[in-house]
């Protein structure tokens, strides 16, 4: 916390050749390689992120291209089971979309929303926390009281409420991509409290340190002190919270979509797919729900494991 430089910056200053060696020798890498499960989690995460990012190129079909989708192909079981079609490896859903492609695109949507929402929560939380900690007084009281009130509720409830309100507000405009941003907004607004609290408490400590006083003495503006000098020194814990929050954000997105108030069925996300699959469970079409479900579970488990590891690895008390 006290160090001004992040490991990357320190390495970059040493020049090109030393950087790689420095990184390879760091505690972080050692503790990473020590745990096989973490390596596995990292591999799974990378594979999924890669597959999601490359979805438009590697997916055998495009779920958005309605000309290639035929209702005649609907409800096909996976290719290896009886009645399966070799064109559709994991089978098709109720609209005849190839499940593998839909999962790839769905993972892409889930990951994008999760990352954007985490980013939004981070920006809101860090700004508010920094403001509350730096200015103190009434500003601090108001911001932290709001945070306390929100902390009384589980995140899912806050997200549901924002989602509900945003739907009513944006319904008049009725634009197609609105649901995507409503999701980002509602998840982002439900997760900012953790950042604000952490940043506020570290800002309270940093604010009285000599470098801040020095910056104040040479007449720098408040904004410049806050963002240029204090902010870099309070980001450490923020990144850890962000890593853990990505899993939460993905989970919230899936839950909202599953509840039917997230992405519409035409825009596949993992939650929407599970919602669709859930309706056909009783007719024995297990594949529509099991494959997206397994993808979601694997993704969340892997990201969670990575986040936990990062938290422990960066905690000097546990070293």
């Amino acid at each position, binding site marked *: 916390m006290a160090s001004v430089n992040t490991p990357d910056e320190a390495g970059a200053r040493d020049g090109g050749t030393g950087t790689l060696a420095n990184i390879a020798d760091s505690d972080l890498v050692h503790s990473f390689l020590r745990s096989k499960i973490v390596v596995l989690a990292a591999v799974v995460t990378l594979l999924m992120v890669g597959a999601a990012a490359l979805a438009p190129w590697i997916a055998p079909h495009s779920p958005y291209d309605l000309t290639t989708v035929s209702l005649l192909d609907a409800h096909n079981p996976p290719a290896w089971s009886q009645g399966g079609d070799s064109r559709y490896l994991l089978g098709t859903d109720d609209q005849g979309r190839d499940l593998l492609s839909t999962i790839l695109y769905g993972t892409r949507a889930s990951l994008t929303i999760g990352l954007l929402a985490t980013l939004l929560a981070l920006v809101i939380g860090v700004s508010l926390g920094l403001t509350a900690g730096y200015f103190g007084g009434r500003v601090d009281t108001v911001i932290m009281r709001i945070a306390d009130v929100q902390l009384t509720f589980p995140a899912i*409830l806050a997200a*549901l409420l924002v989602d509900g*309100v945003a739907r*009513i*507000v944006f319904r008049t405009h009725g634009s197609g991509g609105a649901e995507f941003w409503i999701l980002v907004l509602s998840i982002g607004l439900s997760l900012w409290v953790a950042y604000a609290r952490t940043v506020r408490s570290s800002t309270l400590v940093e604010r009285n340190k000599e470098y801040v006083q020095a910056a104040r003495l040479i007449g720098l503006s408040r904004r410049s002190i806050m963002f240029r000098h204090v902010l870099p020194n309070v980001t450490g814990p923020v990144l850890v919270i962000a890593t853990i929050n990505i899993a939460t954000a993905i989970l919230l997105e899936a*839950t909202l979509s599953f509840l*039917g108030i997230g992405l519409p069925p035409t825009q596949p996300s993992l939650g929407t797919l599970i919602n669709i699959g859930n309706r056909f469970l*009783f007719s024995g079409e297990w594949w529509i729900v099991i494959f997206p479900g397994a993808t979601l579970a694997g993704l969340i488990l892997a990201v969670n494991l990575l986040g936990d590891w990062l938290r422990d690895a960066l905690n000097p008390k546990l070293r």
Partner: protein
Amino acid sequence: MLAFAIRRLIEAAFVMLTVAALAFVLFRFVGDPVNQLVGQDTSLEDRLKLRAQLGLDDPIAVQFGRFVWKALHLDFGISYQVKQPVLGLIIERAPATLELAIVAALFAIAVGVPMGVYTGIRRNSWLSNLFLTISLIGISLPTFLIGILLIYVFSVGLGLLPSFGRGEVVHIGGWTTGLLTASGWRSIILPAITLGLFQMTLVTRLVRSEMLEVLRTDYIKFARARGLTNRAINFGHALRNTLVPVITIIGLQLGGLIAFAIITEQVFQWPGMGLLFIQSVANADVPVMAAYLLLVAFLFVFINFIVDVLYVVIDPRIRIIGRPA
């Protein structure tokens, strides 16, 4: 003690007032209340008359005061969707959710505590590792996925248990209960497990870590030196001392159970308050959303208050001046 309780009460009132303000903003400004109540062909005159009747022309502060006053008298207005008083809708749905939450909490305790004790005592046995792996899965898997998997195995695959609804219910006064019929019990098993699994893993992990800590203390060593049986030490001395934090967590989680029941109720089409809330979000039924928000906030604040005060009663160390962290 009294001063502490009063301070907490004032804080609780502040939280409730903030939530009420939020609910009011929702109620008053999101969607036009008049438009929701009248038909397409109502004349402008009638609309204005209705506006005045509803008091929408008064100053905002007066409107907010009236909103709080009505809420204190449990008057949450009329649902836009079904045109019935919101309170009636919620009261009708409440028993289902409460029964589900209580059975889920009992499940979490009944399974979680023994698992926690076992993994605490036999730290390295394979069964302990199995329990801990299960609890890791319980924490990572989304609630709705667990519900779907349970339905797939026990309803679709084995055909043992029903997958939706409450089964047969019995009316006792204003309360409908499913806990007096066989089909009611069969119906509640899967939703309760789905809802309680997260809490169960929480209890398991908590009891385990508390047990590990307590078993290292001097009085346990002394109890062993006195030649007490393992059973007396583990359950009479160790477990008893782990129970305070466990009871706290379970108390605090009760509000969470009711909030998370939203998801479980959707999966199992359980006719509770959560399902009502989801429908209100999907249909933009603002009065129901606002009422549910107030109700859940009250529940959370109330539970937090009780737990805080109980803490002080149970643990005198907190009684030192100033608020606990």
